[in-house]
């Protein structure tokens, strides 16, 4: 059946796409600045970083080729291993990053009282810089900070949110979640607006209760959006937590909140090992490329929805 429809498809358009030759030349001209920027600030540094990762230069520029020694060192570096474990823990919380905004968006969409107010409030932290958020939460989460005071008022013992290695990563994740989930809510709200009412009504007529309508009809039709939020969030948590770590925990206690991104900065800036930092960067780049590729594949598999 499907083979047949493929055969009867109209022949593909002439190669080269739209417009006359002149227009196409103009289009390339317009693309040039962007292309140059990508080349200068993305591609060249990437290649340069790769070569750097094969050396043991210091910031003064003295150094030799060491081949893949930096990579071998990374494989045996406990700090780097810890940072990877922390990354895995972080990625394991991904379902929360996606589900929480989705549920809140659905509740607002279902018309809970004051929905518009919540939407604005949820979005508010997204406009704050991570340094400000870090500053706010270092006050809130300090051992003698306001959260512990509040807990004390209801008779719960103070918890060392940032200073203990078992809590610090969780606290960090919670703060980052707080500061970004509003964006997810907005994305899901606009997605929900595209789910036609009559499909939900049809489900009601078919006998689906509230939860069945939610999980069998609404959530599946949001699938492309769920995947979009998942990709954006993954890339976000892997690349934009530096500010928060810097202000809140400095990667500690120990290595408990050190993520690869932070480690790169440590090795490069503090420990004066640009070659090694470049090697970790390359590993992080490949990891993220792999994750993004996987997710894009999943997404494109669903484009016919």
């Amino acid at each position, binding site marked *: *059946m499907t083979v047949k429809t493929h055969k009867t498809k109209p022949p593909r358009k002439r190669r080269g796409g739209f417009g006359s030759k002149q227009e196409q030349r103009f289009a390339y001209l317009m693309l040039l600045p962007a292309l140059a920027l990508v080349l200068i600030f993305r591609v060249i540094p990437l290649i340069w970083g790769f070569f750097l990762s094969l050396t043991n230069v210091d910031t003064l520029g003295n150094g030799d080729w060491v081949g893949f020694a930096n990579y071998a060192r990374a494989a045996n570096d406990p700090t780097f291993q810890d940072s990877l474990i922390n990354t895995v823990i972080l990625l394991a919380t991904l379902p929360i990053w996606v589900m929480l905004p989705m549920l809140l968006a659905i509740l607002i969409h279902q018309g809970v009282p004051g929905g518009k107010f919540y939407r604005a409030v949820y979005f508010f932290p997204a406009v704050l810089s991570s340094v400000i958020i870090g500053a706010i939460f270092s006050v809130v989460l300090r051992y003698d900070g306001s959260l512990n005071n509040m807990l004390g008022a209801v008779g719960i013992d103070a918890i060392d949110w940032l200073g203990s290695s078992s809590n610090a990563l969780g606290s960090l994740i919670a703060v980052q979640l707080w500061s970004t989930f509003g964006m997810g809510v907005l994305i899901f709200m606009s997605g929900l607006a595209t789910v*036609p009412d*009559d*499909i939900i*009504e*049809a*489900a*009601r*007529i*078919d*006998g*689906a209760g509230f939860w*069945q309508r939610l999980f*069998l*009809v609404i959530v*599946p*039709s949001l*699938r492309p959006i769920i995947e979009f939020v998942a990709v954006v969030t993954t890339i976000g948590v892997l690349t934009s937590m530096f500010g928060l770590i810097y202000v809140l925990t400095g990667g500690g206690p120990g290595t408990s909140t050190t993520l690869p991104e932070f480690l790169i900065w440590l090795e490069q800036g503090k420990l004066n090992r640009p070659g090694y930092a470049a090697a970790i960067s390359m590993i992080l780049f490949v990891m993220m490329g792999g994750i993004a590729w996987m997710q894009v594949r999943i997404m494109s598999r669903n484009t*016919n*929805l």
Partner: protein
Amino acid sequence: MAELALQDVRKSFGAVDVIKGVDLEIKDGEFTVFVGPSGCGKSTLLRMIAGLEEVTSGDIMIDAEVVTDEEPFDREIAMVFQSYALYPHMTVAENMAFALRLQGMSKPERRKVVEQAAEVLKITPLLDRRPAQLSGGQRQRVAIGRAIVREPKVFLFDEPLSNLDAELRVQMRIEIARLHGELKSTMIYVTHDQTEAMTMADRIVVLRDGLVEQVGAPTDLYDDPDNMFVAGFIGSPKMNFLSVAATGPRQVSLGGLSLDLPQLKNDLNVGTEYALGVRPEHLFGGEGPGLTMQIEVVEQLGQTAYVHGRLGAEAQPVVVELRDQRPKTGQTIEITFDLSRATLFDAQEQRVR
């Protein structure tokens, strides 16, 4: 298999009254069509029957049981939407089986029921596709299939064919009629297309502005309308309304011509103005009294032709249906009045019998 009754059903959206008191009884197995102009409340009334719209006051009964406050599913109705409303992430088979799945029917059983329905609707080869891979007509069949597998007491259709092209619409119209013949279920069908109403209905309910204007068999509405609105709404082209003055208890005059209407049971008020309703096909080739008319516009359809012109000193516009003729613009034709089929309306637009 079910009867349906509406008792003084009303609906307001805030301060706006949309349905203003509808009483209606629909017999078991009847194919009822709601027609009326856009915005008259057809969809709202249907959605109230479905249970998708809350009823402001009044009662809805299915099989003598009050269902006014019941959930749609508990009313055992099925609905086919204008937009098809298929679940985009499910295959055709899954769409059709969704209600059965919710009822806990086993997978093989579901498949069997779905395949049977697909057979009836000739969509068996499509069962494993998704809605996005179907044409409009195919989607509508799937939507109908989804309704059939539930074996509902009442089928509700809200303008199911209006997104289809003219040819497909005629074809689907026949198929829905055939389906009704096979299933013998009670069906309510909403349309603003009076042709659909005439061809499909056992009974037509004409709605205007939230009120029922008339209920009856298609031919009853056509031949014997209760008021000018129904007379004008049913039939295409529209019935001609000519303003006439009463010159006797059963006689009116039009453009100097005296027309006798012996079928009237009540006397007319001499000197009062009335509207004489004559259908286009009753203005030509008859035996009755006549007038001449100059043709202004011709709509030639082949076997029939509709000619437009003006009649009498007041130049009242009329449409006349000619059969097997090739009229030309500018020609003069002889209009004859088949008065036995004419209807008369008073200033309140009500029928004078």
